[in-house]
């Protein structure tokens, strides 16, 4: 992995206040999904604001793509185009009277030609699943939609890094899952993503790496399992142990081994229990589980519904914003819309038939992930792409 942002010895203090962050040393690699976790006032937002030059550190150095960050107007513009920042409150970030104008704000100020502006705005709205909202005023949108507009406004500038300050703090659980799924999707397309949060349950399964912060200092940095394992550290940072990890620790205390891997999902927990049980656990009357993946662009609503009836699908998962739009249009209510692959494997292990609707590039990823799971766990959950020639075609 290529180091993208390097922080050395970073400190910042607001005027007339003790340092908000001090002695931060950290390397952020390209393509990572990082969650900065800490209590209120731990310095998360301050740290994030130094990353795109909104705050100038009093001490220490930041390098971006190998070059030290400079604070003249021109360099800052380049930096802010590359490092997109999404504020906690979308009402702060959305500055234009319509969705289209707001998303176009960055590109217009970067002096893109007119044609290109139209193109990038269209594409950004497509990515976040807000096509057709162009002329809506922001006060007309729901919290989740506003957040999406804010993200689209940043995406339109095509940044390498996306920083989100508390992305789900103002959203309902379904909205939060949608946003986290969107962030996963953007990460798949090569964006480095850094979020701050104090929701440990949210950060734990999502992040590649968790950075724990306490009183302006980094106290731990590593995989989520490792970062949250030290109970003392977690308690001192005024956080709590993720429930899955706690469950695993309690199981371990009762002599149940975790097989060398700490769980990050319910799937992992089930595996630990199955190992202890020496075999599969599933309801007797359930059938033989399988997973079917479909590319929404190759399907039509009628075909998708017919297929689901044909296969007697128990669970429908929808992955990615494009697929979500299609399923809404087709009148399909998804059972799963976040962490779709793992949850579908879980269902298939219990003998259920799952259908996953997703967009083009993701089909092969689903198949890969399931096969990988099969290989590691010595399973044979069948996974196949729904071919365009479905039975109802004739």
């Amino acid at each position, binding site marked *: 992995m290529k180091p993208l942002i390097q922080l050395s010895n970073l400190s910042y203090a607001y005027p007339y206040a003790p340092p908000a962050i001090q002695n931060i040393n950290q390397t952020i690699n390209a393509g990572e999904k990082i969650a900065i976790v800490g209590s209120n006032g731990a310095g998360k937002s301050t740290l994030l604001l130094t990353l*795109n030059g909104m705050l100038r550190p009093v001490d220490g150095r930041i390098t971006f793509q190998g070059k030290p960050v400079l604070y003249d107007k021109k360099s800052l*513009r380049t930096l802010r185009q590359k490092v997109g920042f999404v504020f906690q409150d979308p009402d*702060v970030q959305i500055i234009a*009277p*319509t969705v*289209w*104008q707001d998303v176009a704000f960055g590109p217009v*100020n970067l002096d893109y030609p007119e044609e290109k502006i139209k193109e990038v705005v269209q594409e950004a709205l497509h990515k976040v699943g807000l096509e057709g909202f162009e*002329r809506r005023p922001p006060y007309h949108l729901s919290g989740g939609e506003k957040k999406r507009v804010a993200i689209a406004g940043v995406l339109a500038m095509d940044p390498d890094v996306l920083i989100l300050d508390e992305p789900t703090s103002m959203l309902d659980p379904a909205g939060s899952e949608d946003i986290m799924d969107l962030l996963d999707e953007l990460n798949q397309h090569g964006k480095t993503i850094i979020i701050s949060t104090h929701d440990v349950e949210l950060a734990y399964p999502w992040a590649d790496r968790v950075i724990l912060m306490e009183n302006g200092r980094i106290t731990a940095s590593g995989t989520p399992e490792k970062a949250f394992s030290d109970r003392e550290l977690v308690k001192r940072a005024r956080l709590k142990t993720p429930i899955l990890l706690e469950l695993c620790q309690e199981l371990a205390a009762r002599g149940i081994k975790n097989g060398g891997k700490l769980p990050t999902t319910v799937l992992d927990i089930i595996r630990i229990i199955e190992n202890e049980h020496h075999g599969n656990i599933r309801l007797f009357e359930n059938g033989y589980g399988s997973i079917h993946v479909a590319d929404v662009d190759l399907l039509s609503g009628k075909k998708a519904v017919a297929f689901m009836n044909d296969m007697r699908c128990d669970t429908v998962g929808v992955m990615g914003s494009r697929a979500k739009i299609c399923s809404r249009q087709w009148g399909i209510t998804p059972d799963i819309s976040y962490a779709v692959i793992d949850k579908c494997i879980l269902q298939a292990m219990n003998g259920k038939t799952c259908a996953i609707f997703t967009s083009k590039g993701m089909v092969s990823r689903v198949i890969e992930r399931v096969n990988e799971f099969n290989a590691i766990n010595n399973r044979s959950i069948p996974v196949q792409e729904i071919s365009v020639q479905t039975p109802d075609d004739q």
Partner: protein
Amino acid sequence: MFAHDFLEEAAQNNALLQIHPHTKLFLGLGTIFLVLFAPHFLIPFIASLVLSITIVFIAKINLKFYLSLLSIPLGFATLSVLVVILLSKGQEPIWSWQVLSWLPLSISQESLNRGLLIFFRIMGGMSALFFISLTTPMTDLFGVMKQLKVPDLFIDLSMIIYRFIFIFIKKAHDIYLAQQMRMGYSKPKEAVKSYSMLFGSIFITSWDAGEQFINAMECRCYNGKYPKNVSYNPVEWRSLTPVILFLISIIISSMLASGYQG
């Protein structure tokens, strides 16, 4: 939602939203202009009727909401027209009453005609104005301003104001509710105090919002430009033709009426 009784909210939801704003402005402004020159009260009366029907049945604006809007100018118009009818002198009074020695009230055919003409001019003009504000949201008008070469500074400022009006009204609404929940406006003295607190915190909020606004713009590479959307659905003959026919019929009937009177 706090904005449910806003004109703008109705405009954002009206059924004519997709029609090109030029067509709608042409109808609205054209009617206002022609109604002012109409010689007979029947012409603005019919114009007002046609526009009201358009607003309620074609643009699908809630009838109750529209009537409550109309009642605002109705009050004004009735009062001022009464003054005109009763005080202006005509040749043969139909009815007269000497209230005080210096205050004679009389109604004549001419004053009645004049009063009705003024009344329906007001109502015609107002329904044309309501037609514009109920079918063409501000967000569309910004684009029209740009096409009319209004200075960018003016448009940018009005766009920022537009954006913030809703944020502040929501804020004010929230604070007002919070105050009411704690008996804020129970007594007159209390009410004065609560109002001053309300405006004080709105001031602080707006100061804060201004600072955050600058930050947000900086974060997105602000360089003195504010995007403007001037792309609309094309002007359709289907909608433009009835507008032109309507305006021409007003002109012809005005000419006929003045010929008949002259």
